[in-house]
């Protein structure tokens, strides 16, 4: 336990843990100290010298962002001397800062503007000519204006420490110093994850997003806090809109699960909501061609056809959702299928069957905040850097700040394995069950499992020892762990749990609501149902999925065998083009709802845009269909009332309401944890089949995972985002030039 010390700031007695930075203590106690280069969790820099304070018995003014509090410290933050020093520092910064605030996108929420208003002088004392440099485009996403830069190095430190990308550096020296990739003057561009964190932390308008350039000003747009709809981490973000148009995504000063962190998709991947390609009216196939029709006609047509097909055989109608739907839409869809159509063929199209994981769970899921405090992390598969960037960030944080041991088992050389892992077992593809079995089984069989996984037996032993040595263990399970292996991985914790060891889980599912839609009753059985198309199943209602784009021709053939295909989607996707009827739906920005992220936290999706009025939320389309067909399934008229049904019907969600979500932001659902004592033999026999499937002819995949292989992938949504297309094109060009994929 760290001892607390007593300090005196401006006559106020304060208590703080010893060794904490003085500026943090002051800011937490409401004492304002202006700063540029200080940023929570980053290493102190003391570059801007705005946070100067007078500390008694120190010869000169001291920078409070580097001074650690000591017992009996007496600090003055408001004396004439300090205020004069602040004025002087601002004068120096403004000496080279252009006064182009009317043009600068940061104008209105600029820290330099605020500081000058609060602490600066009206007239600068410097009359020398300012450095005249042009603006650089560091990447398709990021523009840099060296003239506006105040050299606080927040961007460099956040890129180095939080993102571990190291794309930015200081180029040139003295007054000519600029921030950028090495070779910036030769036109080199940023080779990074394009997360835009540097733009977010920039206190001035030196680094700006190209995406939202000149679109609006901070006071002129409406900002709605909502949940990101890309990966399963469920980051909170602030969606800025102006009129009916998307403007930008920001995360400054947010206090959600992700703080101010967002990845490329979170920050730049939402502009599709204002895409020209968005469907605006229902489409109905007439004489082989899809033509725009009114809602009434489309609903009447679908209702009549579904009724006729359902009357012959109830199971001939299938309903498939998508892991991108909100909980409310998924719940309505599942209820409609189960209680309305009374069909047994409903679910979602997904690759990972997480039902087996949740049914056998033996330890709770860790929240991202808990991951940050982890002591030992055992990662079985998964590449969070590319697919779940927030999970990657918190794992990096645990390693960087708390010195967590990262034990990694993966078939690919992921970035986290190359840079953060203390121990990395590079295994054969698909050999995860062998590693798991080695950890469960006795030492005698280590050689056999090592052979299967193509590692040394000694490595497996060291891994086992590191796990048994741990006090607080976090087990991270990647999406390549599937089937029986996933089930055993969920039961695995029961063997490790003890009074002296706490075990928690973190899973890395691929979609924003993979967990939530599962909870709502959409089982991941899409691929099984596909084989029944044309034979047992005659009609399909497909909400929000684009399997033709994702899985290719096998789905295209299967879908063409159907008598009736109804698709509800945002765009005229490859799948929608095969449909008989297409319904236009509201995007996540135009509806209210909730998502459940990978760690089981329920978070709100808030309506930011009005929409055109001709699109509908998914659950409303279901209601309209059910009404036309004369079916009763407990339809509700609003997202909030659907969520009340969810809370009363699904045990994990009981007690959660929109009111509580508004106050608490993220509420973790309580999962049923099995307490039965697991026997190692039972687990091993469950793994037997999976171990037999390991392809021993496969060699190790030695190629490192390239940056952007997951982040810059273009899907149905991201291919409608202009800057994402550019990032993808740039990545293609690099790959073509280097020949490395």
């Amino acid at each position: 336990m760290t001892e607390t010390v007593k300090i005196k700031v401006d006559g106020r007695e304060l208590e703080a843990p010893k060794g904490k930075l003085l500026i943090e203590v002051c800011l937490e106690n409401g004492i304002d100290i202006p700063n540029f280069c200080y940023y929570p969790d980053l290493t102190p820099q003391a570059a801007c010298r705005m946070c100067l304070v007078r500390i008694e018995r120190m010869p000169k003014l001291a920078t409070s962002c580097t001074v650690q509090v000591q017992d009996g410290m007496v600090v003055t933050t408001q004396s004439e001397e300090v205020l004069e020093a602040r004025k002087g520092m601002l004068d120096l910064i403004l000496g080279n800062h252009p006064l182009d605030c009317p043009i600068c996108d940061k104008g209105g929420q600029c820290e330099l503007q605020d500081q000058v208003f609060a602490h600066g002088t009206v007239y600068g004392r410097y009359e020398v000519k300012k450095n005249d440099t042009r603006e650089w485009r560091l990447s398709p996403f990021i523009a840099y204006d060296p003239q506006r830069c105040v050299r606080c190095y927040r961007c460099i430190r956040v890129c180095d420490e939080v993102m571990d990308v190291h794309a930015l550096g200081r180029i040139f020296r003295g007054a000519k110093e600029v921030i950028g990739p090495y070779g910036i003057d030769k036109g080199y561009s940023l080779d990074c994850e394009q997360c835009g964190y540097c733009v977010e932390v920039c206190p001035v308008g030196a680094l700006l997003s190209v995406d939202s350039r000149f679109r609006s000003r901070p006071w002129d747009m409406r900002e709605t806090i909502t949940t990101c709809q890309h990966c399963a981490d469920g980051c909170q973000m602030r969606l800025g809109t102006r009129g009916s148009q998307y403007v930008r995504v920001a995360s400054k000063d947010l206090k959600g699960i992700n703080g101010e962190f967002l990845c490329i998709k979170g920050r730049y991947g939402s502009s599709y909501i204002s895409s020209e390609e968005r469907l605006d009216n229902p489409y109905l196939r007439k004489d082989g061609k899809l033509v725009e029709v009114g809602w009434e006609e489309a609903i009447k047509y679908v209702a009549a056809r579904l009724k006729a097909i359902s009357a012959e055989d109830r199971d001939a109608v299938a309903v498939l959702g998508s892991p991108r739907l909100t909980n409310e839409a998924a719940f309505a869809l599942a209820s409609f299928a189960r209680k309305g159509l009374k069909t047994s063929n409903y679910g979602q199209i997904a690759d990972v069957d997480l039902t087996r994981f949740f049914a056998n769970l033996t330890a709770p899921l860790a929240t991202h905040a808990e991951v940050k405090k982890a002591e030992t992390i055992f990662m079985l598969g998964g590449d969070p850097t590319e697919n779940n960037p927030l999970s990657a960030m918190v794992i990096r944080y645990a390693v960087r700040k708390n010195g967590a041991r990262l034990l990694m088992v993966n078939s690919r050389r992921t970035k986290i394995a190359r840079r953060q892992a203390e121990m990395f077992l590079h295994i054969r593809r698909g050999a995860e069950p062998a590693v798991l079995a080695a950890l469960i089984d006795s030492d005698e069989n280590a050689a056999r499992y090592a052979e299967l996984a193509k590692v040394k037996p000694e490595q497996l032993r060291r891994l086992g020892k590191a796990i048994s040595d741990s006090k607080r263990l976090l087990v991270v399970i990647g999406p390549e762990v599937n089937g029986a292996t996933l089930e055993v991985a969920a039961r695995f914790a029961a063997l490790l749990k003890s009074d002296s060891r706490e075990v928690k889980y973190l899973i890395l599912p691929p979609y924003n609501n993979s967990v939530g839609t599962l909870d709502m009753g959409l089982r991941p059985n899409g691929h099984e149902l596909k084989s029944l198309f044309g034979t047992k199943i005659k009609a399909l209602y497909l909400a929000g999925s684009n399997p033709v784009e994702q899985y290719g021709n096998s789905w295209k053939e299967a879908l063409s065998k159907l008598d009736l295909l109804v698709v509800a989607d945002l765009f005229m996707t490859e799948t929608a083009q095969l449909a008989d009827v297409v319904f236009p739906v509201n995007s996540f920005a135009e509806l209210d709802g909730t998502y459940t992220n990978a760690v089981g936290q329920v978070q709100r999706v808030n309506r930011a845009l009005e929409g055109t009025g001709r699109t509908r939320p998914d659950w409303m389309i279901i209601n309209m269909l059910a009404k036309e067909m004369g079916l009763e399934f407990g339809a509700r008229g609003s997202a909030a009332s659907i969520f009340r049904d969810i809370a009363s019907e699904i045990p994990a969600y009981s007690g959660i309401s929109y009111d509580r979500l508004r106050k608490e932001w993220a509420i973790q659902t309580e999962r049923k944890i099995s307490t039965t004592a697991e026997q190692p033999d039972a687990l091993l026999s469950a793994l037997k089949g999976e171990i037999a499937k390991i392809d021993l002819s496969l060699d190790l995949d030695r190629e490192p995972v390239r940056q952007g292989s997951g982040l810059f992938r273009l899907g149905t949504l991201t291919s409608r985002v202009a800057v994402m297309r550019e990032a993808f094109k740039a990545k293609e060009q690099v790959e073509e030039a280097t020949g490395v994929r």
Partner: protein
Amino acid sequence: MSIISDVVETVKAITTGLKITFSYIPRQKLTNCYPDEPVEVFSAYRGEHYLNVDENGKERCVACFLCSAACPADAIYIEAAEDLRPYEERSSVEERYAKVYNIDYGKCILCGFCVEACPKDAIRHGHNFEMAVTNFSDLIKDKEYLLKNRERESRLPVVIIDEVKRRGLSK
């Protein structure tokens, strides 16, 4: 009181009043015979706005949105855009310019806050007061119209009085 004193008092009062009336007849007339004659307005009159240009005819506006932020009637709508061509080729002073600049004179109260807020001297009040239209939507004036307003200034049916000179305040 006798009837005679009544008559005398009444005549006295009428004469006093008429004296003022007749004293004004030989003086200068204040009413204008608009539209036959031009109207006198002061130089600081807040008429219909015009968008200013620099000495080379480039638009001064950088679409900073400050005028629309200052507008109490929410009458100004702007959309900004970027023009990366060199100064000689583009139509604006800076790279940032207003793609759309609309003032809704159905809302505008001609208070002049926008002119005060403008950091680039891009918007000013003209002296035009003839803003009546027969169609409500014609009250919304776009950028092209507002830019031409500057040229229209010389053709307006107004005589601009320089208040400073008239009062002899100039140095």
